[in-house]
């Protein structure tokens, strides 16, 4: 980045805040880095047209006639008319495929539905050779709720064990207290000033690094009954069948049979009525999700708001939030009407984790209450509950809109169609507990610490309770293809979670050898600084 531009940025800021000058050295490096970190948005002329085209689809119902007229294909009206016919065909076929137990199904059940046993280790290696990706690596720490309490139903038989932590995990990044009392840095360390003299007077205040460690204090583990079975979701390739069904159609002026090897990928069907819904079918993933057709959920009063005062009139209030039972009744009714067999899911649970943040906030008057109640129906495979990598129930997510008092979204519906394959399972309770105490599967935090001893390090120990057993959803990628897998794991609850702890409230330890080895290797890498090198402040000083 050129110096002139940086100078321009700095001069603008100095004009208003001359005190920034003493930070010039670091700003001259920070600003280019900040700009260089700008992600590539992928904006291009094609995107302008694509957005325009979609916008036109929405605008054409109004008296708008100009902007996209020039880019709309001349056969658009015919296609629109024909789309109705196509949609009916798609809907009939996909309902049959997606909801095999639906009353609206066309014929017999899909004979492939269910869990089919296959040979051992049929899904290949489960470790990084398959590029493992877990289901919730983007989660916000601390979203775990009371709903994650251990379930006795799937827990292994337990005996008394107590093991002391042998490792610890650092907080993601150092946090800072700007009070003078915490001035821990020698005065000539960080070049925050404009010259040598100013550097020596500059002070950086750093809060202690908090290393969390975990100690298991649950009952002893008996692994004789743990599951060895890993499941893989089977995805039907309906896209070709549907395209084949349509291939004889003529959509003026296009003849579909002029294309070859057609495959349907996505289709969305929207209800054209107030509070209508949109069903989005993904034939590649063999799944369907339902969203509110937002055009039909417009709130004219709110939409014309131009200031915060107006917007705030439409914010959810505490008293608006319904009882869990009310929301669950609404979501149950929604699924029943849709023909979904909810017996394939566990007990519906409301995600009330926002209450934790609400209790902690000092500014309750301005708290931003959710507008939607999240109801989760955990997927059951062979009677075992599926969890995400944070140990939270994972399956069907149905959102109940508080303002409109109706279901607005539901995702993701998939056919009950799996393969089951046995993998070598771990039999050492100590090994599993050691992994749990090292943070388990869901600790991807930076592992920063000061090896010089110059920064205060605070060690905190969190207690892990008796685990339950469940399935963890994850994906592996090989040869540009992914497979959605479900592996057995122990889910250890973090007990007595401190108010200022933002990590996961469950620790996940997989039970299959492949994944355990992967986890141990990663922990070794962390401890050797292979992922994020530990930094010695004194080395920076030199």
């Amino acid at each position, binding site marked *: 980045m050129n110096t002139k531009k940086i100078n321009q940025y700095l001069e603008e800021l100095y004009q208003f805040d001359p005190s920034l000058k003493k930070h010039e050295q670091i700003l001259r490096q920070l600003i280019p880095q900040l700009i260089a970190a700008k992600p590539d*948005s992928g904006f291009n002329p094609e995107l302008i047209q694509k*957005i325009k085209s979609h916008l036109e689809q929405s605008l054409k119902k109004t008296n708008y006639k100009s902007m996209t007229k020039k880019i709309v294909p001349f056969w658009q009206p015919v296609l629109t008319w024909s789309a109705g016919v196509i949609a009916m065909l798609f809907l009939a076929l996909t309902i049959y495929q997606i909801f095999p137990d639906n009353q609206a199904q066309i014929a017999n059940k899909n004979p492939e539905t269910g869990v089919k046993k296959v040979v051992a280790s049929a899904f290949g290696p489960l470790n990084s050779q398959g590029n493992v990706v877990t289901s919730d*690596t983007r989660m916000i720490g601390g979203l775990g709720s009371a709903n994650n309490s251990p379930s006795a139903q799937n827990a292994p038989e337990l005996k008394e064990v107590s093991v002391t932590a042998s490792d610890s995990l650092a907080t993601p990044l150092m946090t*800072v207290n700007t009070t003078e009392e915490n001035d821990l840095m020698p005065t000539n360390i960080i070049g925050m000033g404009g010259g040598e003299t100013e550097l020596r007077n500059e002070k950086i205040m750093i809060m202690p690094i908090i290393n969390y460690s975990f100690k298991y204090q649950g009952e002893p583990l008996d692994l004789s009954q743990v599951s060895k079975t890993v499941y893989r979701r089977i995805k039907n390739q309906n896209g070709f069948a549907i395209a084949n069904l349509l291939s004889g159609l003529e959509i003026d002026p296009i003849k579909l049979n002029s294309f070859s090897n057609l495959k349907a990928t996505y289709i969305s069907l929207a209800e054209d009525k107030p509070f209508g819904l949109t069903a989005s079918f993904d034939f590649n993933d063999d799944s369907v999700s339902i969203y509110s057709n937002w055009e039909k959920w417009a709130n004219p009063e709110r*939409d014309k708001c131009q200031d915060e005062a107006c917007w705030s009139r439409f914010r959810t209030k505490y008293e608006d939030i319904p009882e869990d039972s009310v929301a669950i009744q609404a979501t149950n009714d929604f699924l029943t009407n849709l023909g979904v067999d909810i017996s394939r899911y566990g007990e519906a649970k409301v995600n009330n984790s926002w209450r934790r*943040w609400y209790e902690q906030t000092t500014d309750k008057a301005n708290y931003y209450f959710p507008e939607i*109640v999240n109801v989760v129906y955990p997927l059951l495979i062979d009677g075992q509950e599926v969890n995400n990598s944070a140990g939270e129930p994972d399956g069907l997510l149905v959102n109940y809109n508080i303002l409109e008092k109706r279901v607005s979204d539901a995702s993701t519906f998939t056919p009950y169609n799996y393969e089951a394959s046995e993998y070598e399972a771990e039999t050492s309770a100590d090994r599993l507990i050691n992994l749990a105490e090292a943070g388990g599967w869901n600790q991807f935090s930076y592992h920063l610490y000061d090896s010089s001893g110059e920064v205060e390090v605070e060690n905190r120990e969190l207690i892990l309770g008796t685990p339950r057993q469940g399935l963890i959803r994850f994906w592996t990628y090989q040869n540009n293809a992914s497979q959605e897998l479900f592996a057995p794991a122990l889910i250890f609850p973090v007990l007595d979670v401190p108010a200022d702890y933002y990590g996961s409230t469950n620790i996940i330890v997989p039970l299959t050898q492949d994944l355990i080895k992967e986890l141990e290797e990663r922990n070794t890498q962390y401890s050797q600084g292979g992922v994020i090198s530990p930094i010695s402040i004194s080395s920076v000083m030199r």
Partner: protein
Amino acid sequence: MASNFNSTINAAAFDRLYEENIEAIYNFLFYKTLNRETAADLAQEVFLKAWRGLKKNNVENPKAWLYTISRHAIADYYKRLKPQANIDDFWDLADSVNLLEKLDQKMAGEKIIHALKKLSSSDRDLLIMRFWLDLPFAEIATHLEKNEGAVKMACSRALKKIQTEAPFICFLLLAGQISNL
């Protein structure tokens, strides 16, 4: 650009508004969501709302209004996605994993992203507008309905926060451990 619309907005004027602002609005939405498809969907939503709003209301500064609609569209989007989340944590939900495709960019980029995550949503908006969208302070002030001085001061504070709240980045910068991207 068309700087003022009244309730008799016509399609030609809206065309112009779209052409002149789509890139900035899309990029703003992308930097706030870090997902291209989402940004495109939200951009469509923003302009649709703008069209409807401009048909009914007098809007003195439609460009600033587009940013206002964008910020609320983002908030609505994240509420739909994670209704339980704290509003200032929304950026944590964004998929930054695939942003930095080159391996040598990843470490440095992640640290900057991580530092930005620690800022409040409004501070982050400010830095995004100034350093990623390259908008002048005067324009940012208009979009945020604040005076220019307050915006510059807020920007100054945001930069100081990055220095103090993520000193690790400063260590690396000074130690030369973050190479030029």
